[in-house]
């Protein structure tokens, strides 16, 4: 029976995500970089790959840093092992957080790293987390306060990122629906309020109804101020827990959420994009992009079930991997081999979606998206290669794989301005 503990990896691995967004475009109040004389400021890129064990339901992920997006072939021999089923989280302050395995079986600790100018990893501290916490997302409020969401326990833990000491537990279990447990997912801070996407999951890790729910927490008191619930837009599962960018703000400080729905498994429980307008604390009832109602231009199956990965690039453009099971007849019975994730671009203003021509369709492991010097970088594990491709929004040119990697390219982040 212990094998069943591994089922959560199915969720974790169907649409692995990445952090993206350069700090200069992120309107989230950012803490100041931790000065660290002698280390210099890292201006390069970091990426991670995942490699499964023979059983397929466990494995390891590896993270490494390069001083630039340097073409070449990279193995994992010099890479740092990081939690499987989760991915590193890089923040605007220059911190890189490494989470434990999503499914447990590793030390339940959160490690904070910084990188020197040469790309060397420097461990800055460790925070011990509760066992079976399934930590998934981190946001920094400032140098002295950050939050980590613990999916497995229904708790958001506040901690000091400088000292890596726990400050408080914010218990959200009272917000659970009757037939589900509540799991805090991706988070964002706006105007001193922490917005926490809530996944209401039953025993099958599935939502039970079309509710989009968030908890709004006052960062001064660490108390839940509001339980935000929308039942009119016909979507659910607010934010993807291991995709920090599944909740983001645009230039107008409007918050957008990527709702996962039921991962396309249950008819009627839908995914898509919704928003909370600047100044409001409720979900905008007049704005949504429902995936079951919105065709993706250039996609043979017309519709996707959910967005496995998103990355906001400014000016209303959201880049994403859209999952469409119809692209692979065996997709639902073989999650590890299905090639069903299509790179797309979403126009949030026009509420339109279209396939990026020339980009390969990937398996669910290799769906990193990031930004680097005006380019959109897609990690892709497709039928031809595993590596990172670039897309130039200005010329609409696709190149790659620029970097070939060992394993599934599941994470990419650039510190370059």
């Amino acid at each position, binding site marked *: 029976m212990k094998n069943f503990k591994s089922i*959560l990896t199915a969720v974790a691995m169907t649409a692995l995500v990445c952090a993206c967004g350069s700090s200069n475009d992120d309107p989230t109040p950012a803490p100041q970089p931790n000065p660290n004389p002698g280390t210099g400021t890292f201006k390069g890129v970091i990426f991670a790959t995942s490699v499964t064990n023979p059983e397929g339901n466990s494995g390891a992920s590896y993270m490494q840093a390069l001083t630039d997006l340097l073409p070449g072939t990279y193995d*994992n021999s010099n890479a740092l092992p990081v939690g499987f089923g989760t991915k590193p989280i890089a923040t605007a302050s220059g911190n890189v957080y490494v989470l434990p395995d999503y499914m447990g079986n590793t030390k339940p600790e959160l490690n904070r790293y910084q990188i020197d100018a040469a790309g060397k990893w420097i461990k800055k501290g460790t925070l011990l987390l509760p066992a079976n916490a399934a930590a998934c997302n981190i946001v920094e409020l400032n140098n002295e306060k950050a939050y980590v969401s613990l999916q497995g326990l229904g708790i958001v833990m506040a901690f000091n990122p400088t000292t890596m000491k726990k400050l408080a537990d914010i218990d959200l279990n009272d917000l659970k629906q009757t037939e589900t447990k509540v799991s805090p997912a991706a988070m964002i801070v706006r105007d001193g309020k922490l917005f926490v996407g809530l996944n209401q999951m039953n025993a099958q890790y599935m939502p039970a109804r079309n509710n989009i729910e968030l908890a709004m927490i006052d960062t001064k008191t660490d108390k839940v101020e509001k339980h935000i619930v929308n039942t009119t837009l016909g979507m659910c599962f607010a934010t993807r827990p291991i995709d920090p960018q599944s909740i983001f703000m645009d230039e107008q400080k409007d918050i957008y959420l990527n709702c996962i729905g039921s991962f396309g498994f249950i008819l009627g429980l839908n995914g898509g994009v919704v928003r909370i307008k600047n100044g409001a604390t409720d979900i905008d009832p007049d704005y949504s992009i429902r995936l079951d109602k919105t065709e993706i231009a250039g996609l043979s199956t017309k519709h996707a079930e959910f967005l496995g990965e998103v990355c906001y690039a400014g000016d209303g453009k959201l880049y994403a991997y859209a999952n469409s099971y119809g692209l692979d007849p065996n997709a*639902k019975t073989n999650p590890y081999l299905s090639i069903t994730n299509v790179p797309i671009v979403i126009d949030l203003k026009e509420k339109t979606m279209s396939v990026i021509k020339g980009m390969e369709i990937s398996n669910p492991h290799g769906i990193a998206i990031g930004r680097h010097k005006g380019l959109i970088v897609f990690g892709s594990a497709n039928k031809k290669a595993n590596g990172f491709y670039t897309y130039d929004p200005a010329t609409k040119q696709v190149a790659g794989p620029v970097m070939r990697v060992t394993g599934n390219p599941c994470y990419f982040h650039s510190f370059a301005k």
Partner: protein
Amino acid sequence: MPGTVRPKHVESRETRTRLRCSLAMLAMLFCVLSVVAQERVVYGKVTDRRTGEPLVGATVTVSKGQGGTTADANGRYRLVVQGSQRVQLDYHYMGYRPERRELLVRDSLKCDVLMESTAKELHGITVIARSEIRKLRESAMPVSVIGEHQLQGTASNINDVLARTVGVTVRNTGGMGSASRISVRGLEGKRMGMYVDEAPMSQLSNFVALNDIPTNMIERIEVYKGIVPYKFGGSALGGAVNVVTKEYPPVYLDASYEVGSFNTHQFSTVLKRTDRKSGLQFGIGGVFSFAKNNYKMTLDNLDGRTVERDHDRFSKLMGGMSLKATKWWFDEMKWELIGMRTRQEIQGIDLDVREAYNHSVSYVTSLKLKRNNFFLDGLDFDFDAGYIIGIYGLSDKAMHRYDWDGTQLPPVSPFGGEQNNFPSDGSNRSNELTSRLNMGYTIDMHHAVNLNIYADRTSLHPKDDLMDKALGFKANFPSKMNTVTVGFSYDLTLFDGRFQNAFTLKDFFFSSHSRSINTYSVSEPEPVDVSKTYLGFSDAMRYKFTNDLMLKASFNSEVRIPTSEELIGNGYSILASPALKPERTTGANLGLLYRHVKDYGGLLEVELNGFYNQLEDMIRFTPDMIPTMARYRNFGSVRTKGVELEMKGDVCRLLYLYANGTYQDLRDVRKTVPGTEVENPTRNMRIPNVPYLLANFGAELHKENLFGGSGQNTRLLFDASYVHQYFYDFEMSKYQERKIPTAMTMDAAIEHSFGDDRWTLTLKVKNLADRHVVSEFNRPLPGRYIGFKLRYLFK
């Protein structure tokens, strides 16, 4: 005296009561039987070395004028020896070179003798020989044999002994009763065949493991590597472990009780009584095992703190009876009935599990029929049939979870549970009917053929209403599965028996029927029907250069039929995989064996084996797209290369030493990621989480009447085991830390028997150095174990 035996760790009233009951049972048995005199029986068969013909009337005499006997019409003889002693037996037959055997008779034992003719072979004579010829043929298989003496001493169970066998690894998750997996040359679990007296354990192994068989009942254990002997049947392809139980003298009582650290108690008893006139043997026996397993463990994942295991209590009660007839037309007709009850708490590691436990009740009945010269001279008939019914499940209904600080946490679902993502209150039922028919016909001394048919029918009836409630739909469905394996073998013997070859062709057939929910979009379960057939073959040969030196070679290309769980799921959490293909293995073994018996009966044996194996369509457990569900898939290809070296022997009359080492290199040989042109990132990498370098060493110092007196024997035993560290994941990064560290463990024991082996006292210490050992990642094993065992043997 039994009353003087006091456990060191007796603390609770419950434990004291249990101990008193056990001792009372022992005392009663001793009172009843202590007045009967002790006899040992030496029995066997005298045959022509070349032809296998029984030597009717051969004389067998015991040294020092202690009597003798003559072989009967079948060449069989039987001698009674008073008390435990070393005896010298002389065998004489006109026209044959005399033979002498020096035996240490502490227990009844079998001694077959092959005599060599001094006359020249008569031309044109054809002799039918059966068992001896066949026995020799089977020795072409790569096999390690563990004798009765190795089963005593420091060992408490079969797994302890297997773990010291060359090429074998036993990996446990905890103390007594914990899950363990045995692997031979790196292939483990379902690929291994488990047999008791050549009958497959099959579904029975869900309820009783080989480890549950009391070592006192075992004559020897045979570990076959790569090729499974054709007589065993079934479709194991990694190898096989065959436990051979004892043949009993007319009156036999064996009772033992062991008390040890971590509140461990083991009591087992066997009583056999044979009526000489009718030839009926009646047997009854039972085993009771209990352990709290409350050893201290270090939580490496949790700030390295040390805690006492507090929810790992294990209890098993097993009782059985048997009736064997040897004069009812069949040479042997045996019926057995066994009942078992197990309850095992689940020990948490990451969290402090407080309520969940597994439970099972099962009943087994079996019938065995054997007859040589079955309607035809030279035709041997061997038939087994068994029926097993089991009720089992997981009870996991707690409404709270706790961490190791005592902090209360919500359950895994609104309906409770400490594990997985849903609660359980399982009461699943399984029924299984197995049968095996083996017909062997020896045509002449050069040729023999054998037909083996193994059939199995399993039905599963899962029931877990609480789980269904938590999932929100009915997820439990009954299933059925049938398998039939037919093996046809041809044996060839040439050059006066120096060359032997056994070729086996097998046909594997299986069919199943079940229902399964494959996706959320399907509200009604879909029927799953499968029916498939496959072919496989194996060949094993040996050549004897001299009486002491032998070359063995074998080659096989076989399949392993998926188990019912792999093919049709378990009806609730594991989905059906009707497209699943059997695993196919192609392997070869080349071995050199030197075996020399010294003048005084001591043994020197050196064996070197090299092996190669390629496993295709490996069946692996993988989570499904439906969270909380999983299924088995064909995924991967593994190539194994390895070498084994084993040396053992009597250095002198007092000292026996053994040492062995295994290097097994399992590599992922998939070229590309399935369904793509992308190179497999783990190609040619070592398969993770499988040990690859292991070694064992042991010594036994034994002396009769060391402390004076008579009828006493003392043994000092020492065993050491080494397993080199191996990684939990594929070896990719120089910063990789997750690994199973090198383990070097030592066990020691002192054993003293007196009253001609009637009483045996053993003081054993396992993990002598109290090392922190794991064999499964993040599953700490017990520290130093001190146990005391008292055994009473009457025959």
